[in-house]
């Protein structure tokens, strides 16, 4: 097969995974939040409401694509693309198993983080392009927040990367084979517990999930930067958010929870063959926890959010990085 065709097919596979994730995650969010609120969630369309999201997709596709007359025409049109493309780019370095992967990059983890660092640009563009106060406030909040939480996120990733000695996602997963002391799986979450907690907090903030969803804040900013959008342009922004959740959870599973490895059976051929399913299961468990947090905690204020990152999270993650590097050298793990 020609390399160009191969690259095209791999990209299409990543798009397919993204779209399926979007449809499944929207239903999952509704059901999980309903459960937490002692409600039922969607029940009418299809058995257990499973077709509700499909109906919603058709609704979004057929809605009028509305543009406010005062909006900045080109920025308003371009913004949903710039929100969506980075969240799609972040899929490309992910590996579902040793053989199921979209690409084999030596800089995989860095690629995911670089793609994530582009997300605020589209949000700022949407906020400015809409020419509305709510949108601009939401855009500025999102940009300030994502810059602040990108730093602890990158520092928390360093621990597993140092342990594995590689930025390649497959190499990081394969470094987590085996057991410690005969029973404990060699997952990096144990020695890197502090790093994982930092990763989880920063990941929740990077995906703008409650308690860090000031950029959307339905009750004060009426969905902020996406306020003026309708139809499928709104759909793309929505989809990007869900796909970012998947990427953060998948990155966490890769770095801290042994990726596609089944504990105590990480050399068993059957367990390895089931790798992609194991990886998806772990990732969806991570997303479920993120939704649980989202449904449980109240929203913090924007100044509290920024102060927490710059004054607490960044110093702690810097100290933790130095400490884990020193311990790693001393113990020679």
């Amino acid at each position, binding site marked *: 097969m020609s390399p160009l065709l191969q690259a095209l097919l791999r990209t299409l596979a990543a798009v397919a995974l993204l779209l399926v994730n979007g449809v499944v995650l929207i239903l999952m969010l509704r059901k999980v939040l309903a459960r937490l609120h002692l409600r039922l969630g969607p029940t009418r369309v299809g058995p257990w409401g499973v077709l509700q999201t499909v109906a919603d997709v058709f609704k979004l596709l057929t809605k009028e694509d509305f543009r406010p007359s005062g909006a*900045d025409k080109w920025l308003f049109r371009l913004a949903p693309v710039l929100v969506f493309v980075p969240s799609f780019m972040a899929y490309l370095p992910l590996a579902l198993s040793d053989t199921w992967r979209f690409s084999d990059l030596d800089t995989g983890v860095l690629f995911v983080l*670089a793609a994530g660092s582009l997300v605020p640009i589209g949000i700022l*563009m949407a906020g*400015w392009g809409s020419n509305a106060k709510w949108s601009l406030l939401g855009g500025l909040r999102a940009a300030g927040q994502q*810059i602040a939480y990108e730093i602890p996120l990158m520092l928390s990733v360093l621990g597993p990367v140092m342990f594995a000695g590689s930025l390649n996602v497959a190499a990081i997963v394969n470094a987590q084979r085996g057991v410690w002391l005969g029973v404990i799986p060699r997952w990096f979450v144990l020695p890197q517990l502090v790093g994982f907690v930092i990763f989880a907090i920063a990941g929740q903030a990077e995906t703008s999930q409650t308690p860090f969803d000031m950029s959307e804040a339905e009750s004060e900013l009426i969905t902020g930067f996406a306020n003026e959008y309708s139809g499928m342009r709104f759909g793309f922004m929505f989809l990007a958010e869900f796909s970012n959740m998947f990427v953060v959870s998948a990155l966490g599973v890769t770095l801290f929870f042994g990726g596609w490895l089944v504990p105590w059976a990480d050399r068993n051929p059957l367990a390895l063959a089931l790798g992609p399913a194991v990886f998806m299961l772990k990732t969806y468990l991570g997303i479920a926890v993120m939704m649980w947090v989202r449904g449980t905690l109240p929203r913090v204020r924007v100044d509290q959010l920024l102060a927490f990152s710059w004054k607490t999270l960044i110093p702690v993650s810097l100290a933790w990085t130095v400490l884990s590097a020193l311990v790693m050298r001393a113990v020679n793990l």
Partner: protein
Amino acid sequence: MPDHVSIVPFAVLTGAVVLGAVAMMLSRNVVHAAFWLLEVMMAVAGLFMLLSAGFLALVQVMVYAGAVSVLMLFTVMLTLRRREDAERPLDLSAASFGLAFAFGLAAATAIGSLPGARVRMPAHAPGVAEFGALLFSRWALPLEIASVVLLIALVGAVWWTGGEDR
């Protein structure tokens, strides 16, 4: 590593860099100009990628596109008191064109007078691991000096802007 890169992606990327820079200079709206600058930075990252410098390309995206231009946009949007203030005057007089031409001529002469830097391409593109090993062994001291300078600049900026309790 081949001695040449393929012409089509090179033409597309350099075209994007040059046209983006021109558009940045010509756009009257400062927010648009900032977005054009971002486009130029992304295209430069693409050029790095074309030269098999993947790590450099990702750092370019992360630092210049993801942080520097976001901060620039953030500052512009935060400091504009009214939306109309984003429009800047654009001087299209003969004198300004003359000045730009003189600068271009001087830059072209200066670059032309340099000895031809014909670098031989290495046999294979070094990966991120080799790059890291070299950076932290042979170039460790310059790296540390650079990071200390940046740290001092950071602390200095915070001190400079620090409120009443300074």
